[in-house]
């Protein structure tokens, strides 16, 4: 074999992660490079695997509820909502109207928090450090509301099977209204910082294209799918928890690239504010817990229930054998399935764009690995 000369190009295997600041956790990507060009990737995941599905088999339905918060810890409330809805489906009960409205309020706040966190870290990956401080500052306001409501900020355990864990605290309405008034100018501010910023646009436009057909093939959901022009949101398509009562739009874009995913998420935050304003106006009086009994024991059977989490479709598939513990509980994590499309998105692109594309998928490794 001849010695490689100065002009020869050979395939370079570059190991990115698991301890890399812009893999958003412990994702390891093995990149095969030809110069600056990515010719193949392989994702190595599982560094954060805790066996959530196995834990579920050894806990009662009530006991398992705090664990779901630890999957997508950026949007813990969405996880809890999905889980509670799945068990409620098996139990054939529905949360009372008051609980449903409060659930919507908290979930939408959580969606804004998740998108804010995404925006900050994604911008940081690209090189814009400033938005991180601002977005985390605004997220703090949301976490304060969570703290006042349920006593925890991140892994909230706010909902309970059949309704809510806690009665609404005094001043939730006021807090949410103030927050709505506070966040809209802030979103404008982020847009001022980024939307027309030439560096931001140059780095994101046309990068990591995933067309609608490819999205469907890979099962990619959430803002990534909507940025490819598919107007599909589970809150509209199969409304749960009373989402059919609110008037909101599902923002879409047609570029299917990283920039459009940013646009879609920014628009989504504004829609969240719209839902929040409607929800907080009419929190009905009444009980916060349906009649589910102390011991939760659904009849034998299977059910799959999914919700629109900030990252995409989050589903819970529960097989019950009629006991107090789930026989099999499967979580359909949006992050894992969205991450699968990474290979398609980075292939043929530049190595510098890999970071942007990982960021745009909005993965949380706690959820990828479970």
């Amino acid at each position: 074999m001849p010695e490689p000369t100065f002009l020869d190009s050979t395939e370079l295997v570059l190991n990115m992660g698991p301890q890399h600041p812009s893999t958003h956790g412990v994702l390891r990507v093995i990149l095969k490079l030809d110069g600056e060009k990515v010719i193949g990737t392989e994702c190595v995941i599982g560094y954060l695997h805790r066996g959530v599905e196995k834990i579920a088999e050894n806990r009662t339905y009530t006991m398992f509820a705090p664990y779901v918060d630890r999957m997508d810890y950026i949007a813990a409330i969405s996880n809890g909502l999905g889980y509670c809805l799945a068990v409620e489906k098996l139990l054939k009960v529905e949360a009372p109207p008051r609980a449903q409205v409060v659930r919507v309020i908290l979930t939408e706040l959580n969606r804004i928090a998740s998108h804010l966190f995404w925006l900050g870290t994604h911008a940081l990956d690209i090189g814009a450090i400033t938005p991180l401080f601002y977005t985390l500052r605004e997220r703090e306001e949301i976490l304060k509301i969570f703290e006042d409501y349920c006593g925890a900020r991140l892994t909230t355990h706010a909902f309970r099977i059949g309704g809510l864990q806690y009665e609404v605290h005094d001043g939730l309405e006021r807090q949410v209204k103030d927050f709505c008034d506070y966040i809209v100018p802030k979103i404008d501010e982020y847009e001022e910082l980024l939307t027309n910023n030439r560096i931001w646009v140059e780095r994101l436009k046309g990068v990591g294209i995933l067309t609608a057909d490819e999205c469907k093939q890979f099962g990619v959901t959430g803002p990534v799918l909507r940025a490819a022009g598919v107007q599909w949101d589970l809150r509209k398509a199969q409304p749960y928890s009373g989402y059919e009562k609110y008037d909101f739009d599902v923002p879409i874009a047609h570029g299917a690239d990283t920039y459009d995913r940013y646009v879609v998420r920014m628009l989504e935050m504004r829609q969240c504010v719209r839902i929040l304003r409607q929800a907080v106006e009419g929190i009905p009086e009444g009980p916060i817990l349906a009649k589910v009994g102390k011991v939760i024991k659904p009849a034998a059977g299977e059910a799959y229930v999914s919700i629109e989490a900030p990252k995409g479709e989050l589903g819970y598939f529960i097989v019950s054998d009629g006991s107090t513990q789930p026989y099999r509980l499967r979580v359909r994590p949006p992050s894992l399935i969205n991450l699968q499309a990474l290979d398609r998105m980075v292939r043929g692109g530049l190595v510098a764009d890999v970071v942007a594309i990982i960021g745009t998928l909005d993965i949380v490794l706690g959820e990828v690995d479970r």
Partner: protein
Amino acid sequence: MAATPWEGELVNDVKRQFGAQILEASSYLDQNFFVVAPEAVISLLEFLRLEADFDYLVDLTAAHYPDRENQFDLFYILYSFARNERIRVKTSIAETATPSTAVGVHLTADWLEREVFDMFGIRFDGHPNMTRLLLPEDWQGYPLRKQKTLIDMDNRWVQENLGIESGQ
């Protein structure tokens, strides 16, 4: 499970196409599902995708029933954007069976099948890369099977790789 029969145009079409391979078409808690013979799964997925617009494989998972003859249940959850409808395809396979891969029909199945292999030890025939997804390569055993040796698996791996007595 008190499932009620599921009727409709789709069921008729599928039954006409597959005949006796469709063992059951039922609905429980307003969720429709087919129970099919294992050899018909892939062709059914293909049929549903091409003829009935079920173009999105939501999830693929399994469950273990150690006391049954066919130890594993495989679940394919499908969704159709055009119909806004979700169905499940369910099949039972023996412990030693190697069902065909669904990667040819839905690309999503790639990692999902690897995860099922990782957790249950079901090998999918024809899968391009049938390796563990979440657990370490040298892990012994399949944790989501209903067995009592999970703690042993953990201890063994910790002893071999970390050189300490127990991870617990």
